[in-house]
């Protein structure tokens, strides 16, 4: 009887440890291989945040930071590079004040080698923050996407 109890306790304990360890070492979400949750045009995305920021935050952002993976279509306004050497594509229609700032990764950088300003493209990535015009700061802030790849 005692032996049985000990074995069951041991098994339960082992399961507990396995769950704890796997949670601790849980890998980051792989945005690149995940499919998009939503498809939206860059203008539309910007407009949603400018019209009602809290409902857009509710729609696009997640509590645990793993926010929506979007497939955003739009016109390339500019192509640049950040401090880590990651390519940054700004999707923005000519008539819009703000756009969607899409940061690629060192793995996906090469996908945009042949892209040109003015081209219409589809970019998948995770949204980090919406667009806003902060009057107090005097800053027009683009929506921000990271872990981007070309669709």
């Amino acid at each position, binding site marked *: 009887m005692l032996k049985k109890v000990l074995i069951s306790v041991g098994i339960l304990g082992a399961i507990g440890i396995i769950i704890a360890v796997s949670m601790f070492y*849980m890998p980051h979400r792989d945005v690149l291989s995940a499919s998009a949750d939503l498809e939206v045009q860059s203008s539309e995305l910007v407009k949603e945040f400018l019209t009602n920021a809290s409902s857009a935050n509710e729609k696009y952002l*997640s509590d645990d930071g793993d926010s929506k993976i979007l497939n955003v279509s739009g016109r390339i306004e500019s192509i640049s590079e*950040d401090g880590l050497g990651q390519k*940054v594509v700004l999707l923005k229609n000519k008539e819009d004040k703000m756009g969607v700032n899409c940061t690629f990764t060192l793995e996906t950088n090469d996908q945009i080698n042949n892209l040109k300003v003015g081209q219409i493209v589809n970019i998948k990535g995770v949204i980090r*923050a919406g667009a806003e015009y902060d009057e107090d700061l005097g*800053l027009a802030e*683009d929506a921000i996407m990271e872990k981007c790849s070309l669709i």
Partner: protein
Amino acid sequence: MKKLIITIGLAVLSIVAFSQDKLITKSGHAKFFSHTVAEDIQANNYKVISSITLSTGELIFSIPMQSFEFEKSLMQKHYNSPKFLDTKQFPKAKFKGAIKDMSKVDFTKDGEYSVLVSGSLTMHGETKELTEKGTITIKGGKVSASSTFNITLADYKIAFAKGKPSTNIAKTVEVTINVNY
């Protein structure tokens, strides 16, 4: 005629000078570091938006909070959660302030200038005034700014009530900012 040309020339020049008065970057770097006996935790963010106005010394930072990346996924989830920074509700931290001792800085001359920056930091829906040391660097006409300072989480009502995160995260975390305009 000559006068007209000079006037137009001056007008164009002043417009050019004015437009370069405010420098903006969208890829600044922010890092925070927390040390406790249990563990060291750090996170990096390369999407910091910042502007500096050369004539007035005004400094602005806007930090998308979900862009902070941690080594461990679980830590990142804890950090973002409503129990801690609640980044869904408060997606950005913002700072608006100015360089206090602007007379020390010569934006036309290469060099490293130690300055004091004061202003208000809004994070997690709480706003606090702060004054911190920073460095303005001018190199080959390029302006950059950096600073390392401490933030007491309780000032911004950020705290885990209980459990492992409450003991493994320091009460005061070190923040490092690095931006190239």
